[in-house]
């Protein structure tokens, strides 16, 4: 039900948008709200599942289930989607106005945003790996078009291509992993697979492939580079796809397949390493960025690093914590993205360095995004506090090293969040801000409010996360999150985080050089550069290969003869040749045949060095006429007769065509030296040799069975005929003749087309 609403929303909004460009946003938002309500209602009333055959030949099922994990992500997709759509209804017209584009261009924007929402809901609910893949790629398609929304801008185009390449190509790995699991266990269904898979190399390989797809989608190192580039999209898109939804799809996949993944320690370790790296790289780079959306993008990389680490840590705290983290992060991060958009819209500046002190002119926004920032930084009284609490608890289970890592990561978050919010709203800079529409502020406030609400009543949020975590673990999870005013390790770690975070903020001069160096190193030798080099390299390689392409008919022919000959040779090599070839005997009756064959060969050879065209035509026809003689000696008078006649007509046509071309042209051509370069002789020899091989091998081994021709001979009287050949042509195999004369007629049609514009007369 929610899925139906969600999937319907995109075409509905597009249809409305086509009628009235302004209608797309409200209709989309209404559908969004409806889908949100349906999901909530559906989940509250105990979930619900659809499981029907999709493609029985391959055991594909349309298996969708609104379980905890699905509900969490579906609510996020529709809820944040609603906020973003409301925001866009004001933002997008402004955006289009800046670019002198018609309002109607916005329709496709809404179409793809809603398509994205629909596929995200579907992805959340899908329980079949192929179905997951379908929705997975649908989100990639929607994202591709949204990033490339400003398609006139080369940067947008390149970014869209990059996002598509990274997420699309890695998605294929998901497919391969799914197929591997299917080949081993005979099902694509995730619940069934969860019951069947055993730890082992197969699971590790397949799981690794699937995990790579998930990690790339969640912008984890080393695939993280596409996300900052994807910021070329309009801000609402960044707020939605690239903080709350598209990137969340990656960890959703991890959560969905967690029952499989957790059976392999290798996989969990990989998650830990990749997650930690992303956390660190994203965090540090976020500290170096000046452009607002870039900062947020790297922060997202880092934040999903946390989630991945939590899945890697595993256990109840890991699984539930990851889900909770995704939920809170989505609320906070989309609020921050939207704030960035509003600020840029109001001031015209998208860099920290050009901003500051905006709390005076935009107090409401400052509060709203302040709460969201506090949530991200895990301050108490926000839902964010609990996300870190669960994270710390999960890390503690694993040991002090991870606890330290967790504190370090959280401190980085604290630092760059402070940098972001403080940089915009505090300070003394005198950035000017226009009055902004309330529509650009309210969604931020609402999202901030939700964060705050979660800090006070954590129950519903945690309940959702618990349900989702239980689905990942395939076992009921029991985790509590509450404020404890005591000195338990989690609280101490939180305090340490704040302290370390403040220290990082204050010690900026100390580390900014090092961080900048890391950033530059990343630019010079990082994966993004590798991607760029790879793409350019491919294009260059392609150019080079193209220059080597055969462009001349002669080389084209040679390129067929040579490999053909090699294949024929290989064929002979791989088969036993002993006793295959026979020389045959020459009997007295064959003498005339032999005498006729020799001139044929001579005539054929003569054509290769005849200069004048007319002579060439005559030599050719003489070869034809002698061949007719050969046919006669073979006991084939019909063939001989037709060969003679055909040869006559062909010679006439040949001479006629020669007559069409001025003598000088022909003479010049004939005067050119016959190219007897050894290469040509070689190719011709290869062709002759392969023909020889095929023909000799064949002629040596006539069929031992009775030929069907005997049947033809016997039945000729039944066809009321005396000549078996004529009977075959007109009756037994009349269809061949019908085809043959059709070719003749076709040639006439073609010749008339070429010479007479297709006129029959």
């Amino acid at each position, binding site marked *: 039900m929610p899925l139906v609403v969600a999937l319907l929303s995109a075409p509905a909004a597009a249809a409305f948008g086509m009628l009235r460009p302004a209608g797309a946003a409200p209709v989309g938002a209404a559908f969004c709200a409806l889908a949100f309500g349906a999901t909530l209602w559906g989940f509250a009333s105990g979930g619900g599942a659809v499981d029907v055959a999709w493609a029985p030949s391959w055991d594909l099922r349309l298996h969708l289930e609104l379980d905890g994990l699905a509900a969490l992500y579906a609510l996020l997709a529709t809820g944040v989607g609603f906020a973003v759509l409301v925001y866009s209804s004001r933002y997008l017209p402004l955006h289009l106005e800046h670019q002198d584009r018609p309002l109607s261009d916005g329709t496709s924007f809404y179409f793809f945003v809603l398509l994205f929402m629909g596929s995200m809901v579907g992805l959340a609910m899908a329980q079949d790996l192929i179905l997951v893949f379908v929705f997975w790629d649908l989100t990639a398609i929607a994202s591709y078009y949204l990033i490339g929304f400003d398609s006139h801008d080369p940067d947008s185009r390149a970014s869209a291509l990059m996002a598509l390449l990274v997420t699309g190509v890695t998605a294929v790995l998901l497919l391969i992993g799914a197929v591997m699991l299917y080949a081993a266990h005979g099902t694509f269904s995730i619940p069934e697979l969860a019951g069947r898979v055993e730890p082992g190399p197969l699971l590790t390989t397949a799981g690794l492939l699937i995990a790579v797809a998930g990690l790339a989608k969640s912008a984890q190192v080393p695939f993280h580079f596409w996300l900052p580039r994807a910021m070329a999209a309009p801000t609402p898109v960044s707020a939605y796809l690239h903080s709350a939804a598209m990137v969340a799809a990656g960890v959703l996949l991890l959560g969905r397949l967690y029952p499989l993944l957790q059976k392999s320690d290798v996989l969990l370790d990989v998650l830990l390493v990749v997650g930690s790296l992303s956390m660190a790289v994203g965090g540090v780079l976020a500290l170096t960025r000046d452009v607002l959306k870039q900062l947020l993008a790297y922060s997202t990389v880092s934040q999903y690093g946390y989630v991945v680490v939590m899945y890697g840590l595993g256990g109840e705290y890991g699984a539930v914590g990851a889900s909770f983290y995704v939920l809170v992060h989505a609320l906070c991060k989309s609020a921050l993205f939207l704030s960035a958009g509003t600020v840029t819209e109001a001031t015209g500046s998208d860099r920290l360095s050009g901003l500051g002190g905006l709390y005076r002119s935009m107090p409401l926004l400052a509060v709203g995004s302040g709460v969201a920032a506090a949530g991200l930084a895990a301050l108490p009284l926000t839902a964010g506090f609990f996300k870190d609490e669960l994270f710390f608890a999960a890390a503690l289970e694993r040991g002090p090293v991870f606890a330290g890592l967790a504190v370090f990561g959280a401190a980085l978050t604290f630092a760059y969040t402070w940098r972001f919010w403080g940089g915009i709203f505090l300070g003394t800079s005198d950035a000017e801000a226009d009055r902004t529409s309330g529509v650009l502020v309210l969604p931020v406030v609402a999202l901030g409010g939700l964060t705050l609400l979660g800090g006070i009543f954590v129950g519903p949020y945690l309940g959702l996360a618990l349900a989702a975590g239980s689905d990942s673990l395939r076992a009921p999870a029991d985790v509590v999150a509450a404020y404890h005013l005591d000195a338990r390790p989690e609280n101490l770690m939180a305090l340490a985080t704040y302290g370390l975070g403040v220290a990082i903020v204050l010690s900026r001069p100390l580390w900014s050089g090092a961080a900048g160096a890391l950033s530059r190193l990343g630019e010079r030798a990082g994966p993004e550069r590798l991607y760029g080099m790879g793409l350019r390299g491919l294009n260059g390689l392609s150019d080079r290969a193209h220059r080597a392409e055969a462009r001349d008919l002669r080389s084209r022919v040679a390129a067929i003869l040579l490999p053909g000959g090699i294949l024929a040779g290989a064929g002979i090599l791989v088969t036993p040749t002993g006793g295959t070839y026979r020389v045959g005997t020459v009997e007295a009756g064959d003498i005339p045949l032999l005498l006729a064959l020799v001139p044929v060969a001579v005539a054929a050879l003569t054509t290769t060095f005849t200069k004048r065209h007319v002579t060439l035509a005559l030599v050719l026809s003489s070869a034809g006429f002698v061949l007719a003689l050969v046919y006669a000696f073979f006991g084939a008078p019909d063939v001989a007769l037709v060969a003679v006649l055909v040869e006559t007509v062909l010679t006439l046509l040949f001479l006629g065509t020669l007559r069409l071309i001025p003598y000088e042209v022909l003479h010049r051509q004939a005067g050119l030296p016959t190219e007897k370069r050894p290469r040509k002789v070689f190719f011709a020899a290869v062709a002759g040799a392969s023909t020889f091989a095929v023909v000799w091998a064949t002629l040596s081994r*006539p069929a031992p069975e009775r030929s069907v021709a005997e049947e033809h001979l016997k039945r000729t009287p039944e066809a009321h005929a005396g000549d078996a050949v004529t009977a075959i042509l007109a009756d037994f195999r009349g269809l061949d003749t019908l085809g043959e004369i059709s070719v003749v007629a076709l040639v006439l049609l073609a010749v008339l087309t070429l010479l007479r514009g297709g006129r029959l007369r």
Partner: protein
Amino acid sequence: MTGAALLPLSVLVPWVLAASLALADGRRPLVAWVSVVGIGAGFACVMGLTFAVLRGGPVEMVAGGWPEGVGITLRADALGVTFAAVSVGVILASLVYEVLGGVRSRTFPALVAFMAAGLTGLFLTGDAFNFYVFFEISMTAAYALTGYREKDYQVRAAFIFAVINLLGSVIFLIAVAALYHVTGTLDMEVMARRAAGVQPSSIISIAVAVLVAFSLKLGLFPFHFWLPAVYVGSHPPVAAILSGALANIGGYGLLRFGADVLPRELELGTAAVLVLGTASIIYGALQAISRQETAEVLAYSAIGQAGYILVAIGIGGPVAYAAAVVYAVVNSLNKALLFLAAGGRGRLVGAAFAVGAFSVVGVPPAAGFVAKLAMFRASVEAGSVALTALIFLGGALSFVYAFQIYQRIYWTPEDGKRKAGPLPARILVGLLAVLILAAGLWPEPLLVLGEAAAGVLEGR
């Protein structure tokens, strides 16, 4: 109507149509629409036949009412009808497209009808020599069609096409005659039975000739050098026909003569087939990447896509053969859509091209993903890591070329010179795209066809 009635009609309807159209001036709208209706009727027959075959098994008819073997057997099995249906469908769509835009040659509709007749005959005949004859009908029609519109480069393309493919035809003819000599029959079913008893060294050379002839047709590396010039040179609907319908001969021929008639030799040549296939996949995709002209990208893409079909044939077994059929069908539709879309402009056409591009790279919900899935199933079940990796690599490269060219055409400011083309033609392209989406969203019919066709090959 029953299958027995539909079988001859499927071939004869376009054939009679072709002969009649030759007498009329195809540029007149009336004549052009008559050709559309006629090919549509032929298509309906083939579709009816397809259903009949899927429901009731193969349909046979011996021409002339003679016993089997004496006369020529028309045999419609799942493999043949699948290819026939797709090819005629592509021809119909391309013809409609051209008719909507205005036919410019008297003979165009007749040539297209001849092509349809030749192709249906070729896919539905059970006789090796008859196959050659139908092959020649469709090839001759193709030579003439390549020159359609008669610009210099089109005539040039037609000449290259004709010379190279005549070479291929002769090689194939030699193979057919050789098969007759070593088996004493032309009926492919009997031939398949008898071929097993022939001296391996004799028949392997014949198998090589068959492989070369059809690889040439399919445009596999290194037999592909004619292909870009021809696809780039010909008029878009003609290119759609050539790559979407005519090229099916290659895939079908390899399946029919390789997997069906000469399975032992195919197995022996697995290595060669796989090398040719993967080389085509990589080479075609690599060449396509930096090409500027859409038709050229599509031409090289066709080489790469043909490679997948060959790889599937090389892997062998029911899953792989089904994959080959599914891939060939989807590839036909993709190529038809892309070539037709490349001829037009505008938002609808852009969307259609995008659907085609997503289908080529195998992104759902476009049908291409079903084909890719089939390929991966085949390669994974064969247990070959290298093949899976190469297929993956080919797919990754196809992402690059498909979307580089897509962005270049549809995402850059339109240069104004481009005309959007008539609305009905654009709608037609849109419908093709919808068809491809539908086949991806509900892949069951495609899979059933593929499995039924593979069943034909395994049933022997």
